[in-house]
């Protein structure tokens, strides 16, 4: 099993989720994060003082999937989350050794 972690622009979340369901992704865990990268935040002004916002709001998806699915999932995320503008985000893949479904105690791929 692999753990796919994707950082995307917030407003792309729904789209990505919908695109993944047909591929058999039955679950995911999402968190609000702030991203720092090439994309520079706009210069803001507060009461006459200029300042840079370095961290931009992003959404992080964590999806555990069986190995076979990884390529198409990664590709689908990449395609769907893409706007072509800087700051679109990343997809990371890492190895997952075990997964357990708390409700049933099932483990391995059945837990996903």
């Amino acid at each position: 099993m692999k753990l796919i972690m994707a950082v995307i622009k917030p407003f792309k979340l729904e789209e990505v989720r919908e695109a993944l369901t047909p591929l058999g992704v039955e679950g995911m865990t999402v968190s609000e994060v702030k991203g720092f990268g090439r994309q520079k935040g706009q210069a803001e002004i507060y009461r006459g003082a200029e300042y840079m916002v370095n961290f931009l709001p992003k959404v992080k998806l964590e999806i555990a999937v069986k190995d076979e699915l990884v390529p198409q999932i990664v590709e689908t995320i990449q395609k769907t989350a893409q706007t072509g503008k800087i700051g679109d985000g990343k997809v990371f893949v890492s190895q997952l050794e075990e997964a357990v479904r708390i409700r049933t105690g099932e483990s391995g791929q059945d837990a996903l």
Partner: protein
Amino acid sequence: MKNMFHKCMKAAGRVRILAAAAVLLLLSGPAMAAVPDESQFIFNTFSFLVHGFLVMWMAAGFAMLEAGLVRTKNTTMQCLKNVGLFSIATIMYYVIGYNLMYNGVDKGFMGTIGLWGHDDSAALGGKFAGEGVTAYAASSDFFFQLVFVATAASIVSGTVAERIKLWGFLIFVVVLTGVIYPIQGAWQWGGGWLAEKGFADFAGSTLVHSVGGWAALTGAIILGARKGKYGADGSVRPMPGANLPLATLGTFILWLGWFGFNGGSQLTMGSAKDVIAIANIYITTNIAAAGGVVAAIVLTQIIYKKVDLTMALNGALAGLVSITAGPDSPSLGLALIIGAIGGVIVVVVVPLLDKFKIDDVVGAIPVHLCDGIWGTMAVPLSNGDAKFATQALGVAAIGGFVIVTSAIVWMVIKAVIGIRVSSEAEEMGLDMAECGMEAYPEFRGSQSI
């Protein structure tokens, strides 16, 4: 407010009678019962001031209600619009509005153009009654009229929230408060043709609330709905308000302010008769609001199996708007029913608007427009002098006028500077896009999840 012109006559008239009564009493003995002219002048003026500051307070009510019902990313902007519109209304009404509405309308269609200025020479000369003498300080009347204008503008800002450009909106407010509102106001309260026809709108269900509602409706249609509000399949995607306690506070503020709105519209307080009328108005106003709340709570429980707070809040305002056209005549029981029906209308109309893809962020159209009409048509139920036909005429005439004029203004603004922000700006939120400032910078919030 009843026609100011008639009112003055009336005041003057009454004063003479009381004076006479006084003299008699003074001669006959058990001592003066009447209110001296100057005391009357003070009572009338103070009534305008106290009730006026209550109505001014409604500006805060609209600001909080709207700030609570928009999403966090548009909250700073909503606050800004509300502070801005009140300021603009203040200035415009001084620069042109007041005289356009009240100066020399004389049964016609509008007054004169020019700065307003106060003249209290008569009173300062010790003259409190008689032809053309007003029984209150000019400025107190101006203050009371002024805060009503702002109310009409506040109604618009709620409906068109979350997508309209700041400057496009502010410019509309300039015209609405400086020209559109005063002209139709002249027809009735300025002593114009509509007043002649015998139209009855005590505190402004039509002149204030439906006017704001019509302007909001045209605006909403010309602007279009917020991005993603309506799915292609006709599905509706709710965009819940970010801070409901704030919306609740706003509603309570408006409720409080309404005692000034309706009570002060009695215009004088210099006699027992007047103050009794004001007291009656307070309680009909209060119970109408209560009726609207209870109706909304019960109805949402029945229809949706859950009680919708935002509907209950709208219900309070619905009751208040509904009673505003005639808070002086109905019994408490009737006032309760009028308010309750107002609440029902809101609960029914809110989803209806969504069917037509008319995106009203805070429900200002059902509350102020629909109930403004309902309230106006309900006046004859308790006020013998009012006729259904005349009421309908007034509603239609003013409705038509506001629809046409505001549509033109919206269109012109759209053509010249544009009224709608870019879809990126809408995505990002108006706060960052146009103010560069988050309303709640530390509260992690996003519509995304």
